[in-house]
């Protein structure tokens, strides 16, 4: 029987929360990819979204608010053979964690970053998240939001992510497929998931989104895959992705905006100068000699320090 990837921990999200759809999409994606549960891990931050790893029956770290990316990067770079899923809140990823978010774009380690985009800080009771529109007044706020909105797609592209997509938590079929493609993508991917929070956000509701979303893949000419063969085409595709990413007011595109397979992942780059990196990564190295002492030859390794 295939692993179903669901743990037996009580899920304590609010009834109607969009998080359920994301969770299901993840477990289904993992099942359909038929991955060995030992080879996938999830690393989250803090927030309603941050609880996700406990609900998945794979190794999971529920880290610190905003720090899932560096923790996850450590996991991935130390054992490049693992698939690392990073579910995170929009506050977590784009507020307190924005610095890491930008940095990971430059690294392209190979993380599957899933942003639970509910426009609010759920777990701390509904404050505006960085994804909330200027002037929006949700029920959790005492006055209209005074901050501008950051667009996750635009920021992900500007940061250099090689795979950028958007899903909607109530369209699990599409979301599951996006997650599958993202997990198979070698570099780091960002999936912005429109996730209604019925408890605090009475504006960006399920209905609100249902009316606005449309699928990029419905346009048969849409081609997000960059192979790197033509530089001009690549630039054009990036620009198209970016411009699509800016769409919001009238209609909201979902699907894969950008899928650049030409940018080498960080693990590939490391492999260029770390001997046997993939075969013998840090996580698996023998550090104790046969006699229980270090096997390192100090004189040879530090020959330049001897006189």
């Amino acid at each position, binding site marked *: 029987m295939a692993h179903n990837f669901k743990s037996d*921990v009580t899920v304590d999200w609010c009834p109607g929360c969009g998080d359920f759809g994301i969770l299901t999409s993840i477990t289904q994606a993992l099942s359909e990819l038929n991955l060995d*549960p*030992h*080879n996938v891990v999830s*690393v989250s931050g*803090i927030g309603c979204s941050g609880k996700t*790893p*406990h609900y998945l*029956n794979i*190794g*999971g*770290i*529920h*880290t*610190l608010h905003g*720090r899932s990316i*560096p*923790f*996850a*990067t*450590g*996991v991935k*770079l*130390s*054992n490049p053979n*693992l698939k690392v899923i990073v579910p995170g809140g929009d506050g977590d990823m784009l507020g307190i964690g924005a*610095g*890491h978010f930008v*940095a990971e774009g430059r690294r392209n380690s190979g993380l599957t970053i899933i942003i639970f985009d509910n426009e609010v800080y759920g777990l701390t009771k509904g404050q505006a998240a960085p994804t909330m529109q200027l002037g929006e007044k949700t029920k959790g706020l005492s006055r209209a939001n005074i901050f501008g909105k950051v667009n996750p797609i635009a920021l992900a592209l500007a940061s250099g992510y090689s795979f950028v997509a958007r899903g909607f938590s109530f369209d699990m079929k599409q979301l599951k497929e996006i997650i599958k493609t993202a997990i198979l993508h070698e570099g780091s991917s960002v999936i912005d998931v429109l996730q209604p929070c019925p408890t605090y956000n009475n504006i960006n509701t399920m209905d609100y989104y249902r009316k606005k979303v449309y699928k990029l893949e419905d346009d048969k000419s849409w081609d997000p895959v960059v192979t790197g063969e033509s530089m001009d085409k690549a630039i054009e595709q990036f620009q198209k992705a970016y411009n699509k990413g800016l769409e919001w007011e009238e209609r909201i595109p979902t699907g894969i905006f950008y899928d650049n397979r030409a940018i080498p992942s960080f693990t590939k780059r*490391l492999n260029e*100068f*770390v*001997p*046997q*990196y993939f075969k*013998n*990564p*840090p*996580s*698996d*190295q*023998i*550090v*104790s*000699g*046969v*006699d229980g*002492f*270090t*096997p*390192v*030859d*100090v*004189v*040879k*390794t*530090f020959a330049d*320090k*001897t*006189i």
Partner: protein
Amino acid sequence: MDLNLTLGGPQGGGIDTSSNMITRAFAAAGYNVFGVREYHSNIKGRHSYNHLRVKEERPRSLKYPVDILIALDPDTIFEHIEDVGEGTKIVYDKQFETSDLASARMIMRDTAKRIKETLQDEKLPLNIKGALQLMQKKGGSPIAVPFNEVVSSAISDGVPTRYFNTLGSAITLAIAGLPSEFGEESIRQVFSAKESVVAENIKVVKAAYEYCNNNKLAGKPIPKLPKKKRFLITGNDGSAIGKLMGGLRFQTYYPITPASDESSILEEHGAISFIENENRSLKDSGIVIVQTEDEISAVTMAQGAAITGARSSTATSGPGFSLMAEGISFAGMDEVPILITLYQRGGPSTGLPTRNGQSDLLFALNTGHGEFPRIVISSGDVEECIYDAMKGLNYAQRYQMPVLHLIDKNLANTSDLVPEIDSKRVKVSQVLATKDSESFRRYNLDTENGISNPGYLGKNIFWMTGDEHDELGHVTEDPDVRDRMMRKRFQKLKTVEDEVPMNDRAVLYGPSDAEITFVTWGSQKGVILDVMEDLKAKKISANLLYIKMFEPFPSEFVSKILKKAKLVIDVESNMLAQAARVIRTNTGINIEKSILKYNGRHITEDELLESAMNIYNNRKEEKLEEVLENGA
């Protein structure tokens, strides 16, 4: 022989190369050299200097007044006015004689003001000549060397100034009486790659010796000693070497002085060579070093790696360490094995970023919100850095908690000749994952020593959370499990106390019974040991209670020694006598006498001896505090 020399010049002007040359020349002749680097937070132009000491046996401290002061710029003469004494030779470029203080704009304003006042007090002109006169008054002998002429006489073409460093070094060597061949040998070592450069520089060395011979500057030739292979390393190197030997395979860092040198060294030596009789498959192993976007990322990324089973570490300094507080608390809560090397510099805040300090001890002991166990160790010399880094990695692995290894900037930038690195001194055990099971209890409460079997991502399925958790690692708010988890975590500290030998926690140097008992930690160790010899010569017996592990604190051992001590003097490079506070917290014993230094410079033997004598002579007084002030 006991030769102290200071070599000064503008930052970025090659002072390090000069000093490397001098060190290698003496080393080639079989001598031991010990040195410290002092420099501004500046890339080019401001005053930097290296203070070296050369001896037959291994020196472990530095001393003023120096025997030779080599000034590669006028600033050096102004800055070191105070560091000369009877017999000091001041070597400088004759051209400097036309410089005045007002035009030495790279000197910090307050320093310039002080120099000005000193000269004015002595009614001396505010220029190099005035400064040299003052030095002469103190017993120094200025030696003006026409740098340009000497160099030009030697090299066929090229810019003469490019060889001034070599000239300065060579003249020093000549004055010290070291035969020219060693100077030439050092040139070959320093410029190894570039043959033509070696040739030109050797010409300059020869010219320097010739100049010294012609001008009766050359010292009495000193004997050549038997030469052995040695490691020329700093504290930074030591820690890097120790980590590599200790099984480190993942290191993160964000650049910061004086920590990042360690990571650069690891990066440069990341392709590890293994000893012959080890498994062939090890032959090509590498270590992953990641420059992160900040220190928060550094401390958390290293943990991510640790959770997969790699021995991992990060290294930083004050400001970066502050940013790690939250991550360290996570490591404590989640029992993540991680070694954090904390290079202490002058604080608070950006402070004196390139200067010495030992002001992060209390912070290290208490950093991170909430209560969690940690191990805090400290090194006192370059060799200790090696073995402590190894032990630190071992502790992290065995006790599954953050280990903080403190090294002060002085030590990080101390260069020492280490005769041997003993790869059998510290065992390194393999990181082993627990056998996987359906419901693997990562935080098994059923343990006497507090240690649960570790799990590793990729090998086991389990959970972790910064929240209080149950045995599987899932969030819990159950009051009872909470209490038990808290106690389990702290139980591990008791296990550390049971398992780690006292020698690795505190050491008593010298006679068990003494008139003076020094207490210290970190890089003062060497200078105190030297001062103990000086005191012995004065017929005053002294010993040193040297602390290496601050958490868990060796309270009983320390208590026993201090209770029977006659005159206890705490020596630290900070203002609050932090180690003394830790002692008070853990033993209730109050140390009333202290010698402190917090101006960011290394403590020298002369000033420490003087202060120790002051305290000794006034030991009847209840409370005494001496503040040391040496250093430019």
